[in-house]
């Protein structure tokens, strides 16, 4: 009953928070007397945290508030790092460019919707960073965007500075369009190549071969130009192959949607052949079958907490996937892939404790620190340590409890969600709605 009430609370909050620009909180904040879940350095009781200049400035007992600091008494409350969702489709005006098998030229950052209400809802679930990925329609999808959920700000301000660029790959059923083949054939539509996993391997090999050739052409031009050859004209930039060259050069992470062990091994082998590392396997529900191989490849994995057998590729999924991977030394995370689950990722982490026997810290890592590693931002976020970004969340109770909820969410030391403020805003929003409706009533409706 209680958790039910909290959900209703969040749903209402989402209306209230709509499009309210958040004022920059200039000053420092001192969070007093909390139970601090640092995630990397254990749990600290009755501890204060000072957030200053966007960073975690001090952690300790009986800290003194600097002049002008806002002081929050967190007695009885928990503070944990902001949750990182390694697989999100929130705040995008488009998710798939599914027309071609290789769409490495498309970029999620071109289609960001900073007004998406799901940003606010996820802040209310303690999420502060997301890995916004292209969909899984094609073998090589688009470029990702790593974002901090600074709701109320412009899209550019939400891009995580310094995060490694990434790209989405996808294997298996979604790419072969197995599920829509029959309807496509019935309508006389041509199926897009590839329709099998064999074809996916060929697409990858072909794309990276072209990327190598492109790189060679660029290098050839550079060599000519260096020799002072005036007839040399720079080759036109190829937006499709540029990001793949970056993958070859280790400057761009590959996040690969995959379910089955065989397709994951295929990708790891192709990557080895071309000399790059797959940063993460996304979903990877059969990862436990090849945990050692994944670990040896230096690859991470981001899985669902459950969703066992929800489709054919998922039939061999088990609840212990993430714990087994962790025990083999794989950097493993739990992701949402869903606007709904994204605001309850703490509960998905708790399932790892319940079903996989993880410790609280290990479970919390799957939604915080490990995600930071997978996105190349572990020096910035993912744990509560001095010098890291002040992306922290105050919870009403232990975040692995269904009875707890996020009360205040900080990003770079600024508050982007506050439950009390949210409650207070509702009156204001109701008044605005009444005024707008009154103004609107004067006008006729569309005659259909």
């Amino acid at each position, binding site marked *: 009953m209680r958790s039910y009430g909290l959900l209703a609370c969040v749903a209402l909050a989402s*209306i209230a928070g*709509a*499009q309210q620009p958040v004022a920059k909180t200039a000053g420092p904040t001192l969070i007093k007397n909390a139970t601090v879940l640092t995630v990397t350095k254990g749990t600290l009781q009755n501890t204060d945290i000072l957030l200053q200049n966007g960073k975690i400035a001090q952690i300790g007992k009986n800290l003194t508030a600097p002049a002008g600091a806002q002081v929050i008494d967190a007695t009885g409350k928990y503070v944990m790092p902001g949750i990182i969702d390694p697989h999100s*489709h929130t705040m*995008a*005006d*488009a*998710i*798939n*460019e*599914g*027309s*071609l098998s290789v*769409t490495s*030229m*498309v*970029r*999620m950052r*071109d*289609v960001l919707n*900073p*007004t998406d209400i799901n940003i606010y809802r996820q802040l209310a679930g303690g999420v502060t960073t997301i890995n916004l990925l292209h969909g*899984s*329609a094609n073998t090589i999808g*688009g470029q990702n965007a790593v974002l901090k959920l600074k709701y109320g700000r*412009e*899209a550019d301000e939400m891009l995580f500075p310094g995060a490694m660029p990434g790209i989405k790959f996808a294997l298996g*059923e*979604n790419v072969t369009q197995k*599920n*829509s083949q*029959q*309807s*496509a054939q019935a309508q006389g*539509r041509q199926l897009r190549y590839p329709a099998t996993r064999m074809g996916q391997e060929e697409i990858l090999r072909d794309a990276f071969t072209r990327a190598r050739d492109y790189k060679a052409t660029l290098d050839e031009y550079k060599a000519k130009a260096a020799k002072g050859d005036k*007839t040399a*004209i*720079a*080759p*036109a930039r*190829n*937006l*499709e192959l540029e990001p793949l060259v970056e993958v070859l050069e280790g400057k761009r992470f590959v996040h690969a949607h995959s379910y089955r062990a065989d397709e994951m091994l295929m990708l790891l082998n192709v990557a080895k052949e071309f000399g790059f590392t797959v940063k993460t396997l996304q979903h990877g529900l059969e990862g436990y079958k090849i945990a050692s191989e994944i670990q040896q490849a230096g690859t991470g994995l981001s899985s669902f907490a459950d*969703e066992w057998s*929800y*489709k054919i590729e998922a039939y061999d999924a088990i609840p212990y996937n993430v714990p087994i991977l962790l025990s083999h030394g794989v950097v493993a995370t739990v992701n*949402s892939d*869903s*606007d*709904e689950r994204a605001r309850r990722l703490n509960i998905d982490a708790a399932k790892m404790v319940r079903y996989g026997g993880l410790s609280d810290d290990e479970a919390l890592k799957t939604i915080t620190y490990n995600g930071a590693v997978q996105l190349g931002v572990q020096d910035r976020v993912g744990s509560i340590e001095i010098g890291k970004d002040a992306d922290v969340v105050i919870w009403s109770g232990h975040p692995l409890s269904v009875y707890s909820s996020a009360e205040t969410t900080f990003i770079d030391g600024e508050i982007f969600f506050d439950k009390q403020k949210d409650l207070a805003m509702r009156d204001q929003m109701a008044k*605005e*709605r009444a005024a*707008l*409706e009154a103004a*609107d009533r004067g*006008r006729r*409706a*569309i*005659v*259909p």
Partner: protein
Amino acid sequence: MRIGRTMRAATLAYAALAAPAIARGQLGVQRQRNAPSVYAITNARIITVSGAPIERGTVVVRDGVIAAVGAAAQAPADARIIDGTGLTVYPGIIDANSTVGIGAIGAAGDAGRGGRGGAGGGRGAGPQQQATPSAPNSIHPVGLQPEVATVDLLNADADALTGPQSAGITTALSIPSSGIFRGLSAVVNLGGMNSQAMVVKTPVAEHIGFTPSRGGGYPNSLLGVFSALRQTLIDAQHYGAEQAAYAKNPRGMRRPEPDPSLEALQPVLARQIPVVMEAGLEREIERALDLAKEFNLRVIIAGGEEADKVAARLKSENVPVLISLNYPRRPQASADADPEPLRVLRARVEAPKLAAKLQAAGVRFAFADGGLTTWNDFLPNVGRAVESGLTADQAVRALTLGAAEILGVNDRLGSIEQGKVANLTVMRGDLFGGRVSQLFIDGMPVEIRAPANAAASAANGAWTITVTLDEGEKPVTLNLQQAGEQLRGTIQGALGSSQISNGSIGPTGDVQFTATVTMNAGTEEARFTGTINGNVIRGTVAIVGHPQGTFLGTKPDAAQGGRGGRGRPPAR
């Protein structure tokens, strides 16, 4: 029977003989070989825009040009005199972003297609099904052909022009096409001896919409639209460099391949002509400005519903806005519909306030029809901007000289000054609240006729829909707002609640849009493709990883509308 057939034959014969006269008449100007070409409107109130209003004066028009204007100006002896008592004369009103004059409008055939045999040919598009025009010999797909030009496609007929004329419009910036690169526009007068005579200036701007390709090929999403735009502009830069290098020293260099599409972008990259980008929401405007900045383009924003939120940037980057007068309208909601999201409500109430906000922020603007469903709303909607804080003078300026300045034709249009083109909008009474009495276009009088039929918008309104997916039947409410070929709106119900995106509607009622939907297994992107026929919408739903679904729905409040008819979208 027999008589009837004879009659018809006689009519056809007459039509053949009279064809040239009809062709002229079709362009809305009753010009004959010996028609008078000197007119004087006397005793009228004259709003010159460039100078102070003249409370009682005379405008003399001779051979298409304003010959004299003033309180003391005299009607020449050879002038046909129009008593202007009770009339107000304005410079001809300019619709600053329109598709007026382009084929899809009106029911007329394609007789005046200017020898453009290749247009639409071989694409299976009949005359009724006006496809996006294709440039001849282009190696780029339809929708990515910046060389398509209004001047080649003008096909104005009387019926097509009566609508805008009835709204007092003498001149429009006419856009040739739809899609992503929408082609080179022209400023056209809405009357003339033939379609070419209408052209005041060409090319005026390259136009960029952000509408994904409807055929399913690349790019079929907003993601691909941006990368296609970016790659085409990069290719155009490279093409220009190659051509320049070859022109300078052709010997020993492989001849670069000519490409009319990339050629057409050279003046755009050289900032000789601006790019008009369709962008309404704040984020759409930001994206457009970012793209323009990336390629150092001169940009004009068209639509601009949320331009006030970007006003500071528009001002500092000196970007004008062609404000859409197609304000969002309240759908007739069914009784059990969810309450409207606050942002939708806000957008509707705030829309008429935009012009005043831009004025206050120092952002230049003009008005455009924005795909209005009825021309009767054009001036009244400017009137609503005036009710919402814009002064009448500011509004008039934006409709005339302000628009001419933005479009680079203020040397010939936009004000009542001696020597300028004699485009005049004559009102009985005031521009806001009065009635359009007469127009002069290129110095020739145009009588106002009621538009043949005010087209209604097929998609507008609340649709009750059942989406059938592998997860079962999902009842949803679809609220659609149509603006020209663009569709906006929301989807609410068993698939969650979201704004639709990438929405478009074709000339035969084919619709497509994407929406983020909440499924059992996660958040997915659903691509809806279908048709609207009367008050029925149906089609298929594609979601990655799921079998294809279907949707079927109706507009419950359409029944009493009495419009009936086919689901043909507005002719505009």
